[in-house]
């Protein structure tokens, strides 16, 4: 996971005062997770960079409204996800997360990472196929909560829903995925 700078609150305060260098530090700290959230919430690989860059600029402009006592990352991810979704709508794209995810999986000839070794390729393919048959909201919530391992708070923020909704949607999305996989609830 992406580490968070220990002095994030100070960086935000300095950025609010117009310190661009402090804001650059915030960008460095969060750009990786921001990029992946953009991918999961709708931007194609080609659009994700632009979506994230625009999101960082918009977040900077909106910093005046950001409460420094709140964590920066969920607030930022909401802006990133909004940018990504807008691009998806703009392009009329309905590219499934699984299609993007499939591009991101190690090729057959690559040495599998330790994590990849845990899941047999056949099972991975089945999971991806199951996910591909889910609706966008289900894919997004499973993508945020599990593929990216965002917290409930971060997922709620990125998807623009309440935390309670994240819990219920996650449970329902898992149920539907089990159904797609032809498995009973465990």
């Amino acid at each position, binding site marked *: 996971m992406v580490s968070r700078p220990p002095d994030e609150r100070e960086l935000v305060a300095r950025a609010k005062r117009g310190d661009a260098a402090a804001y650059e530090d915030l960008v460095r700290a969060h750009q990786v997770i921001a*990029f992946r959230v953009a991918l999961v919430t709708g931007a194609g690989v080609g659009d994700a960079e632009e979506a994230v*860059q625009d999101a960082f600029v918009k977040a900077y*402009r909106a910093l005046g409204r950001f409460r420094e006592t709140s964590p920066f990352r969920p607030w930022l991810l909401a802006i990133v996800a*909004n940018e990504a979704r807008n691009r998806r709508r703009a392009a009329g794209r309905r590219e499934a997360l699984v299609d993007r995810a499939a591009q991101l999986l190690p090729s057959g000839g690559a040495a*599998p990472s330790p994590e990849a070794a845990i*899941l047999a390729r056949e099972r991975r393919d089945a999971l991806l196929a199951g996910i591909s048959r889910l609706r966008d909201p289900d894919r997004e919530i499973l993508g945020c909560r599990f593929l990216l391992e965002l917290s409930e708070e971060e997922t709620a923020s990125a998807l623009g829903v309440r935390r309670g909704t994240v819990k219920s949607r996650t449970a329902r999305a898992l149920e539907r995925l089990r159904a797609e996989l032809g498995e009973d609830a465990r």
Partner: protein
Amino acid sequence: MSLDGELRALGASMEWPEAPNLAAAVGASVGAMPPHQRRLSRRRPLVAVALAVLVAVAAALAVPQARTAILRALGIGSVHIELVDELPPLAPRSDLSLLGLPLTLAEARERFHGTLLVPDPGALGAPDEIRVLDEPQQVSYVWLEPPGVRLLVSVISGRIVGAGFVKAIGPETAIEELSIDGRRALWITGQAHGFGLAGAGGTAGFEELRLAGNTLLVDDDGTTIRVEGDLSLGRAIRVVRALR
């Protein structure tokens, strides 16, 4: 392994594309911007908001087609949605004159081009006021809850050329596209939003009346229905269905 555990393992096994280093590019973009602690002048919020809208509209017109496609994608009925970066501090107002003149239902029907959708009083209760704007054509049904407005339902006629509504939305707002009984709809939640009129002649008035709640926009075959208030999506859909 549980299913969620398997999904975590799947995520961990992905070779995500390397995230670009955006720090320098973002730093260059924001370096010339002013600090953020300046607030909009309390004395001239209308001007500030109108300028924000005009700047945003001008920017949209100036940018390549790919960007304006966003606007086309989000436009619904006669309401055009414009994304802006800054919204003024929320100040719900109860100056209903911004919604036009208070008229009777019969007068509103007479002025409205086409068939006017009317709320079913059995489902929603009679509105406290009916207000009519001529340009653009809009009839608003207002349910009051002193000191403010509880529910605002507007029916906007046709597609406006040259001047229209602009919905200014901050970066924390979420927009969800829906279909309600076969009609295209947008459900806007999150941060409070303003909306207003951007004039074609370079003047802009901004409708100050805005609620802290959510908005549902429905394209009803050329007529736009706007439901605004502190209400859930389910409730907003029931309101739309109660228009006859």
